[in-house]
């Protein structure tokens, strides 16, 4: 066991995949000699040559479209979108081609590839560098959407993404890049489609993914002082989604708060809340609540702490889980004439 950052684990996963499968090509903006702006591709070009790891013209639709063609020719592209919001020019390629080619051709063509997206905030980044864009991809059938929250998962999920027969949007929480943990690589964790209980608890379930997982875990620790024993479930793979593990947890605890960093309206957390109440209605002692970012464009660095879901906000939500069996006062006046 050694301490390693998520960034290093992702780098090791890329290197090991390139070693195991010579069809794997890594490309994007600044990923070659520089090793990526976050150094996730550090050393790959030196080790595998500039045919296996290379820089491209600065054009995201081009990068993803190029990957479509490479995948059609039998190669395994792993592309980097430098930042979340920089991937938007590629959205047509992703939504209309990457996601649909298998379906359009009744399986005759498939384009397995990994689109790596460093995403979300909490790093003091200026505008267009901190978006949580996972809902756009998760709303697009044909894509798998994966987001690790631990160092082991970063390695294992990326290896699995590269081996997967379907295209995978691999969302990397930037603020977790340089957090370290004990690990022994190569490691394999639970496969795609499995959520994991990160912390067992009896009173309520916090469901979180990506950058919100450490927040949920910290909130669960803090909640002990309030007398709540909280369970934390890490979604890990938004698509395919693990209804079973999450529903089982909520049935045990009877209460649920979904925590996500993205703005809340029409987001992944809303989908999770709906799915939980569909499955667990009779086990619930309170409505499923959501803690999310605010419904605003990602704020300037000096204001981002107000936007980001905090431990306090999570605890406030937990406090509203009708422990006294009384209706949530927040909604009592909604819709009544002023």
């Amino acid at each position, binding site marked *: 066991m050694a301490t390693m950052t998520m960034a290093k684990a992702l780098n090791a996963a890329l290197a090991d995949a390139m070693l195991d499968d010579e069809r794997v090509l890594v490309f994007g903006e600044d990923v070659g000699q520089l090793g990526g702006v976050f150094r996730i591709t550090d050393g790959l070009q030196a080790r595998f040559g500039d045919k296996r790891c290379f820089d491209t013209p600065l054009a995201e*639709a081009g990068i993803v479209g190029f990957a479509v063609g490479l995948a059609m020719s039998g190669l395994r592209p792993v592309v980097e979108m430098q930042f979340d919001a920089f991937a938007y020019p590629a959205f047509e390629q992703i939504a209309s081609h990457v996601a649909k080619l298998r379906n359009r051709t009744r*399986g005759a063509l498939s384009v397995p590839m990994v689109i790596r997206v460093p995403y979300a905030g909490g790093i003091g980044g200026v505008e267009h560098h901190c978006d949580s864009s996972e809902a756009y991809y998760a709303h697009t*059938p044909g894509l798998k959407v994966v987001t690790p929250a631990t160092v082991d998962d970063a390695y294992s999920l990326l290896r699995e993404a590269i081996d997967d027969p379907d295209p995978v949007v691999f969302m990397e929480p930037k603020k977790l890049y340089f957090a370290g943990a004990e690990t022994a690589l190569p490691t394999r964790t639970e496969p795609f489609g499995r959520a994991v209980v990160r912390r067992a608890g009896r009173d309520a379930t916090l469901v979180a993914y990506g950058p919100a997982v450490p927040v949920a875990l910290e909130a669960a620790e803090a909640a002990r002082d309030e007398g709540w024993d909280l369970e934390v479930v890490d979604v890990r793979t938004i698509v395919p989604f693990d209804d079973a593990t999450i529903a089982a947890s909520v049935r045990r605890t009877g209460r649920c708060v979904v925590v996500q960093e993205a703005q809340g309206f029409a987001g992944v957390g809303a989908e999770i809340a709906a799915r939980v109440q569909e499955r667990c209605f009779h086990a619930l002692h309170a409505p499923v609540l959501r803690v999310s970012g605010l419904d605003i464009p990602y704020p300037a660095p000096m204001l981002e702490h107000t936007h980001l879901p905090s431990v306090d906000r999570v605890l406030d939500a937990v406090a509203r889980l009708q422990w006294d069996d009384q209706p949530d006062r927040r909604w009592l006046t909604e819709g009544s004439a002023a």
Partner: protein
Amino acid sequence: MTTTPQAARRASPRKRRPATPTAPDPAAGLLPETEPVRLLDPDGTLLPARADYPEPPVEALREMYRRMVVGRRFDTQATALTKQGRLAVYPSSRGQEACQVGGVLALRDDDWVFPTYRESMALTARGIDPVEVLTLLRGDWHCGYDPAARRTAPQCTPLATQCVHAAGLAYGESYQGRDTVALVYIGDGATSEGDFHEGVNFAAVFKAPVVYFVQNNRYAISVPLSRQTAAPSLAYKGVGYGVPSEQVDGNDPVAVLAVLTRAVAHARAGKGPFLVEAHTYRMEPHTNADDASRYRDTDEVEAWRDRDPLARLETYLRGRDVLDDAAVAEIAEQAETYAAELRERMNTQPTVDPLSLFDHVYAEPTPQLVEQREQVRAELAAATEEDA
């Protein structure tokens, strides 16, 4: 230092010469000819031979004629099938037969084609089953043919997105030691899309063997070329990417095949992409649902009728004694048989299976898709029970 136009005119020829007379012009060989390449006059007579664009073998031209005749008949039949309600919609390529057929004739069977929705004729000319080609427009699935087996990408409806796919595929093929060429069909409107520029640029930077073949048929639905570009012609878009380019009379089948043959050879030789603009005209509306009289007048259409690529090639081949009345009649007969078979096969209602909706979304369906499939299966079973 800036020079006014007046000053430039006043400057002596000696002064306007480059400082180093021997320095090569970096754009040499990239710019197209100022007039579209033409090897046949509109009346079908051969123009003086050109060393850079040798006339294709006459047997190839005869085969081109045959496929153009069959292609036009296919196109007419598809339009008729649309009027009969057998197709949801049909974008005709009547008038563009030289380009439709020339593009596929310039390629080997193991080369790749990246077509748009207007290339149904080209795909049938490539030998793909016309019913499979029309699956998209009939509506029983999206792509009806096997793209991997036919080395033909699904017909692309989003404009120009296939320009980048072709760059990736062609680069991937050469990376793996294969000398495959990819040919992209696009229209004039699509050259305004970002993906056209990204595709051509990627292909150039990675020296991918791609031929970008622009059929400039003057209109993007209703919008005329003047609203797409201020460039002298669309073939001038290559030079900015370092891509050699040419423009050709798209209704001159001999020139179209000659120019594309050279472009394909250039790509296959490892010299990178090539851009060809063919000046042609869409004789029919955008689709059967379009009213072309709202944006172009009859005189314009009639003027282009006089430049019909089929009549032009027929006149030429008759003059070369490789086509006579009997051969013309026989090819027309082939075309009729082709259309009759298509009509017959399209007259049967295709069977569609709602449960197949869940196939091929992923390699393995997600638990949620399995659940939804089960729900639809139950709905279908209940409906069958009610009917019984």
